[in-house]
């Protein structure tokens, strides 16, 4: 069981995602802004971050992921986005531009998202053990 932070400004998304993650026994905290998210990262010390591309600004999520990586934070990040469909912009996992571990287009199917969460947590666990 792990501590997971969900950062999304849409309360319905954070509610739904935290609902099934909590049911799986994870400890979940939600945040709606980048500032709130950064504070939660420090206080809550999550082991995984579910991050939306658009928070307050259209690319806030990406900027935040880049900042984390620049600061040497290797925390697994799952990025959620509905941007591609609306604006025609294409986002995908990209180590340089979008330095995240997994990328899901909204709505993310709960079972797929869960599987990815478990996979990343397991990978992280094995990395830290070795």
């Amino acid at each position, binding site marked *: 069981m792990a501590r997971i932070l969900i950062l999304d400004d849409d309360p*319905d998304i954070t*509610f*739904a995602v935290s*609902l099934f993650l909590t049911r799986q026994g994870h400890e979940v905290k939600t945040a709606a802004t980048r500032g709130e998210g950064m504070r939660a990262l420090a206080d809550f010390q999550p082991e995984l971050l579910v991050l939306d591309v658009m928070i307050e600004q259209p690319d806030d999520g990406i900027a935040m992921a880049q900042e984390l990586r620049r600061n040497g934070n290797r925390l697994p990040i799952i990025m959620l986005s509905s941007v591609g469909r609306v604006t025609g912009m294409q986002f995908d996992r990209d180590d340089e531009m979008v330095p995240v571990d997994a990328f899901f287009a909204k709505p993310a199917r709960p079972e797929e998202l869960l599987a990815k969460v478990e996979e990343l947590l397991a990978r992280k666990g094995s990395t830290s053990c070795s």
Partner: protein
Amino acid sequence: MVLDKRMLAAFGSRRRRSFAEQELAPSLEWLIRLRWFAGFGVLLGGPLAAWALQLAIPAGPIAVIGAGIVGYNFAFERALRQLCAADPDATGRFEAFVRVQVILDWIALAVLIALTGGAESPTVLFFLFHITIASLLLPEHLGFGFVSLAPLLVVGVALLEYTGALPHIAIASPPRYRDSHFVLASVGAFGFACYGMAYCCRSIARRLQRRESELIGLYEGVRDITSSLELMEVLDRIVETVPRVLGCKAAAIRLLDGAGSQVQFAASAGLSERYCDEVPAEYARSMLDQDTLRDGVVDVPDIGKDARVWHPELVRDEGIASMLSVAILGRGGPLGVLRAYGAPGHRSSADDIAYLRAVAAHGAAAIENAKAFQMLAEIDRDKSRFLRMTTHELRAPVRVTEGLLQTLAAPATGPLHADQRELLTRAQRRLTSLHALIDDLLDLAAGKADMVPLQLAPVMLGDQVREVAERLRGMATEKGLALTVEVSRDELPVWCDPADFDRLVANLVTNAIQYTARGSVNVRVLRHGEGMRVQVGDTGIGIPAEAMPHLFEEFYRAPNAKATGQPGTGLGLAIVRTLVERYAGHIGVTSPEGAGTTITVDLPADVNRSAPVGAC
């Protein structure tokens, strides 16, 4: 500066005063300034010349004449100031003023001539100054009348001296005032000089006036032509301008069709319908049009002698004797031909050609702009139609999904645990806002789609507003807000589609209720000129200054409106603006900081009479 202002003022006025008319007041100032020199010249120069040249002329009386000129000039200067202060545009009074001045000057000069040797007097030449002034300042018929007066005055003085009725003051020795040959020759030469001078002045003035009228015509024409984005209006304005400025019989624009095979009459002024119908339009056979598009301009001074006019009888029957054609060239190639038609006796000058080419050049730009505008309007209409259709299609599945979720939430379907119920409630809430968005999009598209015929009817806005207020009263009461309606007694019926007005007011009132936490929402319906004003005021959160410029943009929501957490699509005010524009109305917003918002909509009572709107 004075001149520029006057010219501009004249452009704006209904009856345009000619350049010469506008020049009158400044010219009179100039005349008075000149007269100071003349007056003091006679006052001091006369006695001085008599003394220096030892002339036997009466210095005293000459000085009196000079003093007289100075005296009446002083009076004129004051009178002019008063005239200008009273009404600088009263041209008639200025003209009378000029006449009085010229008459007095000429009498003074005639007396001066009599005192300085009559027909022998060198001061006779001073008349030439006066003739120049009279020719330029007075209307043509009066100018020449005054010119005739000058030799008559001189002849009169000579005759009186010749007959001994007037004592001769000799300046030449021996005196020659009785030498009939000398008197006739000098008076005759003087008369010729007078008329010659007047003729030259007049010709120059006339040419300048013509040039001025052309320039003003061009300026006004271009202004008219470019002030419209309706293609037919642009074309009509061009063809109406040309005969007015060139003084020709008619003008027409023939535009090439897309394939370049036909040159059809697109607009004409001064031509009969029969002529426009019967003139063949095949471009391949019209040498005149082909030559015009190749060379830019074709002048046919006599249609009978030009083989390119291949339907001369038709042209002659129309009373046309000459044609001047110029090409209308757009950025992408030739658009058509602009043609001026002259009646018998009409001749085109180089100036006419230059003028017509200038009009065609400006016309080409205006035509292309109008065409582009027309295309954009069509695209916009297509877009609105598409929006309406797709939005309409979206509505059905949303409704069905709402129904499905309601069924899921119903106790009859079976128990749900708390988290499931919460998920369901959230899903239903999101669907409701999607539903609202679809409705707003449909309203917006309906407002923009002007292909839907309006159900225009005389609507008493007060009744409509009361109806809307009753419908929304529940919403206001729920929030503890007072919703009031005031309707003035002198209400005018407004021609509009009642459904449109309902939508407009409902949007404004809903907004006001939504963004007002406490206080009231007040709707006023009052008379405003020839139309009605609807004012929706609230004591709500107001609109921050930075949001004002974006307020009517689609999907825009002011930051403080978003922060309230109230659901909203950001389309409400865009819908209102579209509806107001549809009825050629006006919308204004005031929101003094912390004092709520007032939105004012002015609608003309009859949109058809107030402004042309495509929708109607």
